[in-house]
């Protein structure tokens, strides 16, 4: 049986050898596709069987997978979750701003800026070392206790401040690594054209650095999204807090499942975007 192909614009007609090669490749890809499907099914079946066959499964199903509780808790947890999204949307740009500023301050050379630079170093050292949940406690209970004029007392605002302080330190390090990764010859070229430190940073170093750190930054943001739940510890009515309230009144933990599902729905798109961007920059570097 001979498959005839018509000549394309360049006059190329596929040889019998190429036609046969493509047929074999197609067959192989169909086969590996079916192997993948079968093995995935097998793993899922084994997992489900393993969990449901366990002695405590009946009780777990009742306390975590109760459809009635799910429906009942859903509206409250969802409305709490909107607060999480709000905290995240406000904290994210602030984190970028703090991180970038701190990274830039650490790059200043002039002795005039020594105090600022020392402050930036102290900030990153402290806030990268202290667990985020402790920062939330300290800010949430400590700041209002100072009783200063104009100090915010709104719990969600305090949560935003705490998350910004904590994540700002991480993101500053990410930016700094990106800035350091730009080759010194790029800086020499910019300086030789007469650009000063500021101009070199702005037009030559930062644009290249930012492109390189987008994947790790997005990764930090995925983690910031779920850490908005830590703000529950100081009391605002976000998703985890709402779930706690429901769980406490019914002794059923299904509301936590609602919260978990909502967080997964939020983080998956960003996680996929991160993978995509990382793969793309890998390809670019490879060429």
């Amino acid at each position, binding site marked *: 049986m001979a498959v005839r192909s018509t000549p394309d614009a360049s006059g190329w007609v596929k040889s019998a050898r190429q036609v046969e090669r493509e047929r074999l490749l197609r067959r192989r890809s169909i086969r590996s596709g079916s192997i993948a499907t079968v093995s995935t099914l097998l793993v899922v079946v084994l997992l489900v069987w393993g969990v449901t066959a366990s002695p405590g499964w009946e009780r777990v199903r009742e306390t975590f997978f109760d459809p009635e509780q799910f429906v009942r808790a859903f509206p409250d947890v969802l409305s709490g979750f909107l607060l999480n999204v709000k905290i995240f949307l406000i904290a994210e740009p602030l984190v970028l701003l703090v991180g970038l500023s701190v990274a830039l301050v650490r790059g200043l050379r002039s002795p005039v800026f020594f105090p600022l630079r020392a402050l930036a170093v102290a900030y990153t050292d402290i806030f990268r070392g202290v667990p985020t949940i402790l920062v939330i406690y300290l800010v949430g209970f400590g700041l209002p206790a100072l009783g200063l004029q104009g100090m915010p007392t709104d719990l969600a605002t305090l949560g935003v401040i705490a998350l910004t302080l904590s994540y700002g330190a991480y993101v500053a390090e990410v930016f700094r690594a990106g800035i350091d990764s730009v080759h010194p*010859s*790029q800086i*020499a*070229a*910019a*300086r*030789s*054209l*007469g*650009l*000063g430190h500021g*101009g070199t940073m702005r*037009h*030559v170093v930062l*644009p*290249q650095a930012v*492109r390189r750190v987008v994947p790790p930054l997005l990764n930090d943001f995925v983690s910031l999204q779920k850490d908005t739940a830590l703000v529950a510890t100081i009391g605002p009515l976000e998703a985890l807090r709402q779930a706690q309230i429901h769980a406490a009144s019914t002794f059923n933990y299904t509301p936590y499942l609602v919260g978990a599902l909502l967080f997964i729905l939020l983080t998956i798109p960003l996680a996929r975007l991160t993978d995509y961007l990382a793969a793309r920059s890998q390809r670019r570097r490879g*060429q």
Partner: protein
Amino acid sequence: MKDHSLLTVEGLWKSYHGHAVLRGIDLEVRPHEVVCLVGASGSGKSTLLRCVNLLETVDDGAIHLDGRDITDVRVDPDAVRKRMGVVFQAFNLFPHMTVLDNITLAPRKVHGTGRREAEQQALELLERFGLADKAKAYPDRLSGGQQQRVAIIRALAVRPLLMLLDEVTSALDPALVAEVLGVIRELKGSGMTMILTTHEMGFCREIADTVCFLDNGVLLEKAPPEEFFTDPKEPRTRQFLRSVLDARRI
């Protein structure tokens, strides 16, 4: 008033970690003159160019540009650098910018030229050097020879008093060297003052008004090219030229 020199280097010393790389260099470059620095690898050619561009601070001596001491500590290095054009061995184009943006960056951000005018001038330069169709391309889409020509245009776009070219053909495939040398030839034709370092002795002989031989940080011999290549005075120079010739024969 006598014919003043554009650049004067006087008793220049520079060391790295206690190791003297330049030991009392004296050099004069007149307007429109092309000075070619030759010497073994590690003899200090690049360091001398970096000192002239104030990318390094000197340990002793002085450099005068257009009658002004640029090594004076009160001088703003950025103001000095914007009057010189530098071309590096590895091109160092900005990879995130198009060819046109690479060329117009300094005119716009350092010299305050408007975007329209800067782009107009850049396009004229690209046209002149046969790269007009690459204006919108990114550097990684260009061959090495094209990248280096863009780098030369970028340095040229700020109308420098003086151009410094450091082994601009060393990173290129032999087949691409000619197009870059052609650009330098044209710059000389237009009267540009240049200091260049190169391993291409044939080109050096053709283009230089003065050849300087650097040996271990000392400017050992300085002569017009005919004299330098046919009748070198110093034994070390003769030895260097012989080693270059031998290397070519292999």
